[in-house]
């Protein structure tokens, strides 16, 4: 079966390569074909290795999680490196090559997609597999699907990133990949959803745990958003270019309905799933309030879908939609703070651990940044505030306080918790390096966010400033010049953050390779063997 899929991938890619001659889609075709044949080779090669023990059904299936964690760390290093590169480009615009691929406009989506989908997506898929099995006391139903998901998803990320460098983009923010990559991702995503539901069906715990609610919301709603936002007509099968089904004002609304809910369901719901498992596990405290979890979960799931229009204040979008978006954005603060509060109150009685354990501190700071960013988000959604902040660096600062402060910090906390468990080690290789990573990440984030607050507010004020004669006080270029010191500070903050991720990967690799940290027995409970797997086990005995 795996061979068949790899062969399909190989032939499919080759076909795309041939009909897309002379177009970037052709390059992608050959890239897909190459990956397909490489997989085929690996599968055939694995026939020579000894048969896996049938006893495997008595253990959780964690290999895809391990792969996902490493891939997430690789992506965050690439993506923050590119991010910092383009941050310096705004200081030194000449510091690049005289070629299309290296210009700001093409590198920027590599950064954004690399962080959101490469880093965030891999981290979410990896941890969701892990959490899903533990909280259900059930092993994943088969071995092939999780691998198809991890490999397929990363192939999508690779197509996306290389496409941007060649100028392949739909221009839809946070959904830049073109139609063929979108279709491919849809297939992978549906498999992911099915795997999730199949595993939940096999669960031996009567209740579905809170973390899984969030992971399910993440998978289901992203599927809906992705499909509708991506609707487009390609020029031909041999063209990477397609034209969006929607235009003008409707397209703007659909794009921000998608865009803001990518923030909601990818960058919030998914990572809340992470928080709801790893934070209580690390702190060894139960979640503060179960009822608060219910209220905040449904609040977030229902309310977020209304708020996208706050990205379009004072535009040609009808005012009634703007007003709805603003109103719901303000109400949204209630479930957001309920989640953040629930997380922080869970730490009550474990504050000594927060002081001593940098891993837990990562998660604590993440919860705080989550609270701060959601407050800021609701604030920026108010029309008159938005009049000042929109189009400025303030928005960029807001996004990064969420992405660096919340998303990345909760992920690093979870990864540092998870890595020793997965590889059967007592603890991470170096606690000191986690400490260094923590302070680099926190300092980098704070420098970044403060720089963007300053530059954003100054920009906004300069654009609307009038002089005594009643004419505009500043030309646009004067506002660009005023940004320079903040752009330097931002690029420096970003570099600190990037450095932290490199140290993080080094620490993880060292942990995996170390022999003296070895644990005798796996740390977690065994899954309860499902009836369909029982036969495999019996024949073995």
């Amino acid at each position, binding site marked *: 079966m795996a061979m068949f899929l790899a062969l399909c991938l190989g032939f499919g890619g080759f076909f795309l390569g041939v009909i897309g001659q002379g177009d970037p889609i052709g390059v992608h075709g050959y890239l897909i074909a190459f990956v397909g044949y490489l997989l085929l080779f690996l599968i055939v090669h694995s026939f020579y290795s000894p048969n896996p023990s049938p006893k495997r059904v008595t253990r959780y299936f964690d290999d895809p999680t391990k792969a996902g964690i490493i891939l997430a760390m690789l992506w965050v290093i690439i993506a923050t490196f590119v991010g910092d590169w383009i941050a310096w*480009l*705004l200081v030194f615009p*000449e510091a690049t090559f*005289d070629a299309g691929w290296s210009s*700001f*406009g093409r590198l920027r*989506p590599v950064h954004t997609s690399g962080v959101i989908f490469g880093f965030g997506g891999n981290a979410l898929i990896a941890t969701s597999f892990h959490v899903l099995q533990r909280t259900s006391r059930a092993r994943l139903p088969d071995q092939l699907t999780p691998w198809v998901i991890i490999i397929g998803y990363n192939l999508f990320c690779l197509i996306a990133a290389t496409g941007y460098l060649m*100028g392949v*983009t739909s*221009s839809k923010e946070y959904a830049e990949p073109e139609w063929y990559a979108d279709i491919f991702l849809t297939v992978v995503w549906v498999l992911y959803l099915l795997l999730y*539901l199949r595993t939940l069906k096999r669960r031996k715990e*009567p*209740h*579905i745990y809170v973390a899984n609610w969030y992971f*399910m919301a993440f998978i*289901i*709603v992203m599927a809906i958003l992705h499909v*509708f936002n991506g609707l487009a*007509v*390609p*020029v*031909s099968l041999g063209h990477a270019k397609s*034209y*969006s*089904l*929607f*235009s*003008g*004002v*409707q*397209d*703007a*609304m659909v*794009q921000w*309905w998608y865009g803001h809910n990518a923030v909601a369901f990818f960058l919030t719901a998914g990572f809340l799933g992470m928080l709801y498992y790893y934070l209580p596990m690390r702190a060894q405290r139960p979640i503060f309030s179960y009822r608060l979890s*219910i209220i905040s979960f449904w609040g977030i799931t*229902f*309310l*977020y*879908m*209304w708020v*996208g*229009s706050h*990205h*379009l204040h*004072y*535009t*040609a979008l*009808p*005012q009634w*939609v703007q007003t709805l978006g603003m109103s719901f954005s303000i109400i949204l603060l209630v479930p957001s703070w309920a989640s953040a509060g629930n997380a922080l109150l869970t730490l009550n009685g474990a504050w000594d651990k927060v002081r001593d354990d940098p891993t837990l501190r990562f998660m604590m700071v993440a919860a705080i940044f989550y609270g701060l960013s959601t407050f800021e988000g609701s604030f920026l959604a108010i029309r008159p505030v938005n*009049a000042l902040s*929109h*189009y400025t660096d303030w*928005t960029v600062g807001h996004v990064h306080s969420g992405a660096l402060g919340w998303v990345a910090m909760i992920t690093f906390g979870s990864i540092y918790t998870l890595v020793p468990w997965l590889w059967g080690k007592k603890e991470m290789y170096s606690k000191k390096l986690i400490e260094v990573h923590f302070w680099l990440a926190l300092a980098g984030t704070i420098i970044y966010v403060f720089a963007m607050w300053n530059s954003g507010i100054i*920009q906004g004020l300069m*654009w*609307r400033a009038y002089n005594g004669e009643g004419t505009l006080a500043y030309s*646009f270029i004067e506002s*660009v010049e005023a940004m320079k010191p903040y752009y330097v500070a931002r690029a420096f903050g970003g570099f600190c953050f990037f450095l932290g991720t490199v140290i993080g990967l080094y620490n993880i690799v060292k942990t995996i390779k170390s022999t003296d940290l070895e644990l005798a027995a796996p740390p977690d409970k065994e899954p309860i063997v499902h009836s369909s797997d029982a036969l495999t086990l019996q024949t073995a005995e």
Partner: protein
Amino acid sequence: MFKTHEKLERSTIGFAVAIMIAASIGGIIEIIPLFTIDETVEDVPDMRQYTPLELAGRNIYIREGCYACHSQMVRTLQDEVERYGPYSLAVESKYDHPMLWGSKRTGPDLARVGNKYSDQWHVTHLNNPRDVVPQSVMPSYGWLLRTELKYDDLDRHLAALKKVGVPYTDDMIDNAVADAYGQSDPESDQASGVFERYGDDTNVRAFDGDRRKLTEMDALVAYLQIMGGLTDISQVQTDDVNTVTKNISGE
């Protein structure tokens, strides 16, 4: 309420369906009416489609990610109207698949940039922005002048746009390739067809200064020069075309 939820969280499918329903309501209420309420997009008789060359330029604008730093949406705020020109109307991006309203102004808004600068200024500026604006942080796009435009498949682009609702006629689609060439070479035989199909006001000239070669620069400048010029309606902006004028009626 919490009792019901205890039941719900025991059912995989039930929970999944509940998520789908809760998450769908907002989108349905905010998006569907935008397609059905007529007032959402103003009705303008003189609105024209992009010419094939302008469309090719727009695709280059998308390819290079220009929209990441330049918005195309003048908001209904006094300072914006004074800085950039009349605020943008929904109808102006009616044929924009996708729209490029943007969300960030690292550089200025471009919704009204058409005919504000000369072709020569744009060519110099795109080639190296610091030649005309020393403090600029915009990247140089040196390869635009060096790269010949790929325009032999523009008919298929127009046909795809027709499928998503842009009213290109068969005549326009059939002559797309010739029109792309004609628009950048006023002395060629193909030039007259451009006026015929897209109107007498269409810009027909050698945008990059060299009429013998059709470069990516030609296409991009052609696009920049038509921004805000697909209809004259924005120049009027009376109360009956938009109801949000109160925002700019200040001093």
